[in-house]
């Protein structure tokens, strides 16, 4: 697939911008702070309904404006779809598909499949577990948009359950009895059901993703040790027991019913501690994706260069995985070539050249490898101008 057009209004620094893209390579060139990443961010937001830089929507709206609008025309299999998103912080965002309003923004997930590699990705390796959970969950939704509903349900149940744990804990401490705990079983049951579905989906994803990431890491850092990914569940030792054969059952998929039972058991075991602390200690929101090189955790051990290679391998692996099933994703490379050495530049350029569409940003043309010239846009003083 490819993005034929992007139009933004009051998004980040842009009052208005409209860009016509073509398949193949597009390069956005401009000095720092001209708004190149803002444009890439707009595309990526449409694809995942989240920003890679901020966790709330407010910074996405141009200072002084009420709401931002991002509109794209995406071409896939000779069909063009337009998606429009209105981002209004503090209120529900709205989306349109081919001009018709859809009940919820998440209905447009899947229309634009994209993989973004950006300087912020170093946090995938060095940052906290939340970054890696988000990496997995975004990829899950790109592959199966239905799972956005599972994630939303899980988050909602989790927030309700935490609220209940907090009030139950407070009541207990002030000697007010345990009235709140009457409904905890109900919330446990719902948390376990949605949690098992999410956990199962992540485990299934990892089985498919791992070989792609390993191969990508070997390609970008042939001199280094093997890259490994391992899912760390809050279930701990109960996880392998729940899913025989290292995470999968005979169908090759994680057994969601077994995971649900395992989660319920764990919830029962940790209940006292949870009420005491007012925190939900069990569930996929506590999990991590552990990255390691030659048996050592990447976080805290890997060098700067290795960490960069790992981050790149996670993105390239995702790209290859998405490519292997369903519409070919759009590759977005934000200001990353300047960070890479000659070898890794060449490997990334090779993947980019084979992509149906890749959008690259750089401060100066020299930062972009020779072979990736393509269409060029200059981004300067609030304008995007096609120059080639």
């Amino acid at each position, binding site marked *: 697939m490819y993005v034929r057009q992007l139009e933004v209004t009051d998004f980040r620094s842009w009052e208005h911008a409209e860009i016509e893209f073509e398949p193949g390579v597009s390069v956005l060139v401009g000095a720092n702070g001209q708004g190149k990443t803002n444009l890439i961010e707009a595309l990526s937001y449409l694809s995942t309904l989240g920003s890679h830089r901020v966790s709330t929507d407010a910074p996405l709206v141009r200072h002084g404006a009420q709401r931002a609008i991002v509109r794209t025309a995406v071409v896939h299999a000779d069909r063009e779809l337009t998606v429009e998103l209105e981002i209004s912080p503090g209120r529900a965002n709205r989306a349109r598909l081919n001009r018709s309003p859809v*009940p*919820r923004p998440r209905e447009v997930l899947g229309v634009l499949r994209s993989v973004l590699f950006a300087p912020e990705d170093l946090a995938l390796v060095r940052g906290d577990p939340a970054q890696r959970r988000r990496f997995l969950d975004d990829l899950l939704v790109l592959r199966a948009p239905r799972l956005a*509903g599972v994630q*939303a*349900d899980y988050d*909602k*149940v989790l*927030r*309700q*359950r935490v*609220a*209940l744990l907090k*009030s139950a804990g407070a009541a207990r401490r002030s000697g007010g009895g345990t*009235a*709140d705990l*009457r*409904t905890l*079983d*109900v*919330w446990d*049951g*719902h948390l376990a059901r949605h949690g098992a579905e999410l956990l199962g989906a992540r485990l299934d994803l990892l089985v498919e993703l791992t070989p792609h990431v390993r191969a990508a890491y070997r390609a970008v850092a042939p001199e280094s040790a093997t890259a490994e990914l391992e899912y760390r569940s809050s279930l701990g030792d109960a996880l392998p027991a729940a899913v025989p054969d290292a995470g999968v059952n005979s169908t090759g998929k994680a057994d969601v019913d077994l995971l649900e039972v395992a989660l319920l058991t764990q919830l029962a075991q940790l209940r006292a501690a949870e009420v005491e602390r007012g925190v939900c200690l069990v569930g996929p929101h506590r999990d991590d994706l552990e990255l390691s090189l030659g048996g050592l955790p990447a976080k805290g051990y890997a060098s700067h260069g290795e960490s960069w290679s790992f981050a790149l391998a996670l993105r390239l692996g995702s790209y290859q995985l998405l490519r292997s099933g369903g519409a070919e994703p759009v590759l977005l490379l934000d200001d990353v070539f300047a960070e890479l050495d000659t070898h890794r530049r060449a490997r990334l350029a090779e993947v980019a050249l084979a992509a149906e569409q890749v959008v690259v940003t750089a401060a100066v043309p020299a930062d972009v490898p020779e072979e990736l010239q393509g269409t060029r846009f200059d981004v300067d003083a609030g304008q995007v101008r096609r120059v080639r």
Partner: protein
Amino acid sequence: MYEGVVQDLIDELGRLPGVGPKSAQRMAFYLLAADPADVTRLQEALQRVKDGVVFCAVCGTVAEKQTCRICADPRRDVRVICVVEEPKDVVAVERTREFTGRYHVLGGALDPLSGVGPDQLRIRELLTRIGVDDVTEVIIATDPNTEGEATATYLARMLREFPGLSVTRLASGLPMGGDLEFADELTLGRALSGRRAV
């Protein structure tokens, strides 16, 4: 921002559900320009709902008298109760014309984030009714969202204590994450006739 009383009116209207700042402003200027008699009628209607409307002593829906029209209707089957969250859900289910029993309005759903637990809902009243009226079936028609589903699970567990009582939940097909009130009659009617035991 407008001066004084006009802005006060806009602010008050803007607090109503579904009314954004723009519509609040439009309504305010409509009222300013409207015939005084129209405004008086609106004023009186508002006053009357606050003074006159009571909640049915049996089912908890809004009513004009002690007992609502449905609870007072002898043709409605007293042994079948449809449990809903809000009075507006009674209206939604009535629109389907599929249901001939009585209602029970909980007054919300389990919602720990807003401090709503079982004691804040009319659950005890429901249990009493089941015993007194010899109820044979309870249909749980809470909203198909996180809070509504949790409430349904909780009720189903409580109702297990009544041997022989059939407890059903609306069939799926209702848009998940939604609100009963917004389901169209056909979908809701189908969910009602296809209800399954829980």
